[in-house]
Each structure stands twice: as structure tokens, then as C-alpha cells.
């Protein structure tokens, strides 16, 4: 069984770059002889992803591509992970993503379903082509820090510190947009682990206030409706 599953579609200008961001991680996994499955391009579609996740129930998951609040998007521009199959991420040591907005809902759901740590972003992720090495370093830092057995709480601090430092350096080089993107990515980065995800919903806030982490276990009206509609 594989220890890691890397999912990295490549179908447009942005995913050409996000696909390449993964190379430093796959190179590391090759060099350290760790077993991994690289679901790249045509392999990064729902059927293949589901099959691979089922066959490797303890593998750590790395996903780099587009996303939205509810889904991670595959090579056919269709969801590969959404509310119908997010339970396939349960009981894994982590799911690391580089995907827009998934942390606002889907990432929370992955954590609710039992994924032990979920690294995600709660808004649109951005980067600029005049600072690709710096963005690659920022987006992959959590993976390498975890390989050094750091705790997730410390990883979040370290990655945010790194992004802050890189943003300052980029501003110093006169790369203002790159710096602003880096700083914004820092603000929207989340790691759902021991920490209880924040919420804007008053009902959820009350549930968390009174029940703690269990407050997230109560389904929202939209989740309840989704389950009821499920065949």
C-alpha cells in the first residue's frame, strides 16, 4: 500500500504551474524511497481518485489544483472530492491542499468526517509568475515540516511565519503584487486539526460554544438536505 497519494491535474495555465509546484515533493518521495501514487493529469479524475483512496485507506493525501467551497477539481474540470465522497479522507494522517476556497466548507467537512489534519485555504489562492520559487516554497512548506515530525500547531505557525517573511522580502525587491498575494495566502491558510474551525453561522457558533468540537458534528441544514437527497 502506498504511503502518499499525490493528486495533481494539469489542464490550464494555472494548473501547469501548480502541477510543477508538486515536483519538489515527488522528487523528495523518490529520493527517500517512500511509496507514493502520482495521480497526474488524466489519472486525476473522480473514478481513479476514489479507487486509489479506497485501495490505500491510510495514505496521506496531497492535492494541488483548482477548488471551490465544496469540491476539489479534477483533470476533467469535474469534482474529484466533494460531499459525496469526502468520507474517503477519513482517518488519514493528513490531507494537504493547494485549492481555492475548499477550507471554507469542504475542508471542514473532511475534518468533521475524521481526517486528522486538513491544510486548506478559505478564499481564492493567488500567486504571481515573477516569484514562483517563493510561492512553491510557501505552498509545499507544510509537507516538508511534517516530514520532520513537527506538530500541526507548530507547522501552521512556521508556515505563516515563512509566508510573512517571504512577503516582506518580495516587497523589498519591489515585487508588490507578489508580496500582497503571499500575505493574502497567509491570512486565508488554515490547518484543521486540534483547533476548532471558526464559523460565521450563529447556530453553529452557539453549538461550538456549548458543545466544543462536537458542535461541528451537528449537520447544517444544507448538509442534512444533501444527505436526505442521497439515493
Amino acid at each position: 500500500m502506498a504511503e502518499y497519494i499525490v493528486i495533481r491535474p494539469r489542464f490550464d495555465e494555472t494548473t501547469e504551474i501548480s502541477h510543477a509546484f508538486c515536483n519538489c515533493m515527488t522528487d523528495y518521495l523518490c529520493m527517500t524511497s517512500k511509496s507514493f501514487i502520482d495521480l497526474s493529469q488524466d489519472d486525476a479524475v473522480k473514478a481513479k481518485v476514489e479507487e486509489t483512496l479506497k485501495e490505500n485507506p491510510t495514505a496521506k493525501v496531497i492535492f494541488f489544483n483548482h477548488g471551490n467551497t465544496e469540491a476539489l477539481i479534477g483533470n476533467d474540470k469535474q469534482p474529484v472530492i466533494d460531499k459525496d465522497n469526502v468520507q474517503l479522507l477519513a482517518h488519514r494522517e493528513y490531507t494537504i491542499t493547494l485549492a481555492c476556497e475548499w477550507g471554507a466548507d469542504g475542508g471542514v467537512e473532511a475534518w468533521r468526517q475524521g481526517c486528522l489534519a486538513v491544510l486548506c485555504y478559505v478564499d481564492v489562492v493567488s500567486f504571481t509568475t515573477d516569484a514562483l520559487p517563493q510561492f512553491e516554497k510557501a505552498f509545499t512548506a507544510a509537507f516538508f515540516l511534517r516530514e520532520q515530525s513537527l506538530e500541526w500547531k507548530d507547522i501552521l505557525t512556521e508556515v505563516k511565519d515563512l509566508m510573512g517573511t517571504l512577503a516582506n522580502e518580495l516587497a523589498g525587491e519591489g515585487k508588490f503584487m507578489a508580496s500582497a498575494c503571499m500575505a493574502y495566502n497567509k491570512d486565508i491558510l488554515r490547518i484543521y486539526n486540534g483547533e476548532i474551525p471558526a464559523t460565521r453561522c450563529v447556530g453553529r457558533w452557539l453549538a461550538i460554544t456549548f458543545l466544543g468540537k462536537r458542535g461541528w458534528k451537528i449537520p447544517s441544514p444544507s448538509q442534512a438536505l444533501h444527505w436526505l437527497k442521497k439515493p
Partner: protein
Amino acid sequence: MNNRELALLALEADAKQKPNEKVHAGELVFTYKEAIEKIRQGDKLAIKLVLNPLMQSLKSKSFRAKVIQTLGLERT
């Protein structure tokens, strides 16, 4: 000078120095020059994804000082 004007000047400086470089925000891809044009046309997505993060960074005194220094606006 307000943050919006300063952000646009910073973007213009980026566009002048690096005409071929692009900003990727979600599924949107703009050259800096295209981003400026879209923002000036009032494109809501360009404003949200490009201008707003720059204006957010300009709230930091050190970032603002670097922009002002680089653009040579100390005396304005």
C-alpha cells in the same frame, strides 16, 4: 494619497518592470497591465482578487513605506 491610488501605482510599477509576468488568482490569469485595465473598468473580480489584497497589504506600515520609497513618493 489613498490606498486605492497607491495600490494602482504599485501595480503600474510592477507592470512597467515586468510586462510579461502574470497574476494567477483562482481560475483568472491576468498580466499586470490587464489587471490594471480591468480594475479601471470596474471589473468586480479583478478588484476583489488583485486590488483588494494589495490594499490590504498597504495597511501594513512597513509595506506602505516600501511602496512609497520605491515609487519615489516620499515628498507627496
